[in-house]
């Protein structure tokens, strides 16, 4: 009895012994990395210069030979940062780009708002599929509204209160120059209805606080903002999903509100239209000596 237990224990111990992998894998690099195999400890500035030069050489080698390889390069294929930094113009927007961004995926079929019915294509896998044949013209209509507002010198606010939407709304507002504003964190209730308390009397008296257009990338958590815009008769554009009544905003864009890529696409399209409007406004008011609008330095990161 004891013998059998001992043999069983020994066998299990042998099986559970982990295979020792070599700690030093300098000789057994299975993946191609851009660091040199000999890791020279960097002590002097010359060591660092050598390190940089080696890396640059490797990179130039790769770049040189990439022209003989596939035509699908990092620049020509989709990368997640392209949506943010290379926005599409409204004229070059197509159903395929909306579909690629996942704009057609709505929420669960059971949560569908009955007022959303005109924009729903159908149901698949338990979720509502949004009809992109409606989304595209509505998006272009919204772009027209943005362009016209900006062309008349109007101020446009981009609201996207999720962490992944923060850089999106910031870049979109930057494209509009001095006419673009953004809210990437929480919208403070009372921003428009309680302006004196929030901004102070002198700012309200001297500056144009009430915006001319508000664009919401996630309307559901920002119902306060929507209500305040309704009180002040400010037109709103918003991405409405299938669980939302599209009448909450003036120009709904039926699309997936949970997808970052969709929000980046929509914000990019609207900001490009807005930039065109801003240029039209600036052309019209070229002798801008008396209108008092100070031009902020535009930080253009994209085209």
């Amino acid at each position, binding site marked *: 009895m004891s013998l059998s237990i001992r043999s069983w224990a020994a066998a299990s111990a042998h099986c559970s012994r982990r295979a020792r992998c070599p700690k030093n894998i300098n000789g057994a690099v299975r993946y191609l990395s851009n660091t040199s195999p000999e890791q020279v400890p960097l002590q002097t500035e010359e060591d660092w210069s050598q390190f940089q030069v080696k890396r640059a050489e490797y990179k130039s080698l790769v770049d040189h030979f990439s022209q003989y390889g596939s035509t699908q390069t990092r620049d020509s294929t989709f990368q997640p940062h392209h949506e943010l930094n290379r926005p599409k113009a409204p004229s070059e927007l197509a159903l395929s780009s909306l579909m690629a961004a996942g704009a057609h995926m709505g929420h669960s079929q059971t949560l569908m708002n009955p007022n959303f019915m005109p924009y729903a294509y159908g149901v698949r896998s338990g979720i509502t599929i949004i009809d992109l044949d409606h989304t595209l013209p509505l998006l272009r209509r919204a772009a027209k509204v943005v362009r016209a507002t900006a062309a008349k010198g109007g101020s446009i606010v981009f609201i996207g209160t999720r962490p992944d939407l923060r850089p999106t709304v910031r870049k979109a507002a930057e494209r509009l120059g001095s006419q673009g504003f953004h809210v*990437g964190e929480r919208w403070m209730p009372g921003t428009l209805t309680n302006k004196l308390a929030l901004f102070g009397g002198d700012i309200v008296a001297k500056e144009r606080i009430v915006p001319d257009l508000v664009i919401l990338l996630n309307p559901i958590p920002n119902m306060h903002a929507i209500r305040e815009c309704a009180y002040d008769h400010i037109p709103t554009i918003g991405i409405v999903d299938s669980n939302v009544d599209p009448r909450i905003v003036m120009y709904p864009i039926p699309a997936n509100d949970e997808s970052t890529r969709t929000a980046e696409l929509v914000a990019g399209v609207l900001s490009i239209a807005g930039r065109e409007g801003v240029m039209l406004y600036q052309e019209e008011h070229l002798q801008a000596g008396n209108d008092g609008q100070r031009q902020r330095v535009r930080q253009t990161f994209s085209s």
Partner: protein
Amino acid sequence: MNVLQQMQRVSAIVGRRTYATTFVPPASLENVARRRDSGKPLPQSPNIYTGRPSYYDQLNALETALQHTQRALRNLQLLPLPQFARDAIPPPNPVWKNKRVLAEEIAESLTVTRYRRVINLLNQLDECRRIADVAGHHSLAESLARVLQDFEPANKEAVLARGKRKPVKIDEYGRSYTIGRRKESTARVWVIPVQDKTGETSTTSVQTPEAPLEDELSAGEVENEGSKAPESLLDPVPDVPPAPVEVTTTNILINNTPLVQYFAHQADRETVVRPFKIAGLLGAFNVFAIVRGGGTTGQSGAISLGIARALVAHVPKVETILRKAKLLRRDPRMVERKKTGLAKAREAYTWVKR
């Protein structure tokens, strides 16, 4: 023909438009409500509708600076760094303005979360600066340092020096001033090295404990080689007295009295002189001490610590030997207080059964 040409011209103009236009009936353009504040300028900050414009402007500026820096470092092949290169970067030692000071500067209230977001960005920028500095790109590192300087407090050096012992200064006469403490006594000790007639101080001509031995050995060898061995053991040894060793007489004055007079007990005198003996610097320094508080043991211990610290200041080489002998340790033992319910600190009253 004219109509056709006109239509062609119109279609050519319309064809140039890249966006569709809508027809607005003229009647609806008649009673358009004008904005009351259309003449006013727009707000300066793009973050005006967040309610905290200056904070978010600051944050956005830092994020932009970080993006630019990271792009520059990527072009210089310094980002992303492998682990072995990361280990070669000097460790971070940042000192930033505290939450209250920063809140005053941006004129807005700062919660801990918002403050930490700023500090997080500053730490990332500091890391980029260290990478640029260690890799030899000093211009980039300096420009980053200038950006970060606005966020560093005025007393940054004082903050960094906290916890470090101040170096003991030696004045123009060669005196060091140190303080030693033991129990309730405090000793202020001035130590000055003895100067020879040539002007050499004892510190410059100080020999390590091994050196005198070596000299004696070498001197002995020279003598042996030079002189001949006596032919017989019965020959008289020449009566040559040994060369007198010049020992400098040094003074130790405590509260203006000599050591021997101040401390009657040999043990206390020994405590005071012990640092010199261990370091091998017995005739090398003069000591003047003012000691207050406590009793003989405390005062002698305090003077000993003061002397040990002064010796380290004058002759840094003896630090290891003094530390090993525990002479640089401020003895933390103090008289324990009496507690209630006990006769003394530890002594309890006689236990009574009933």
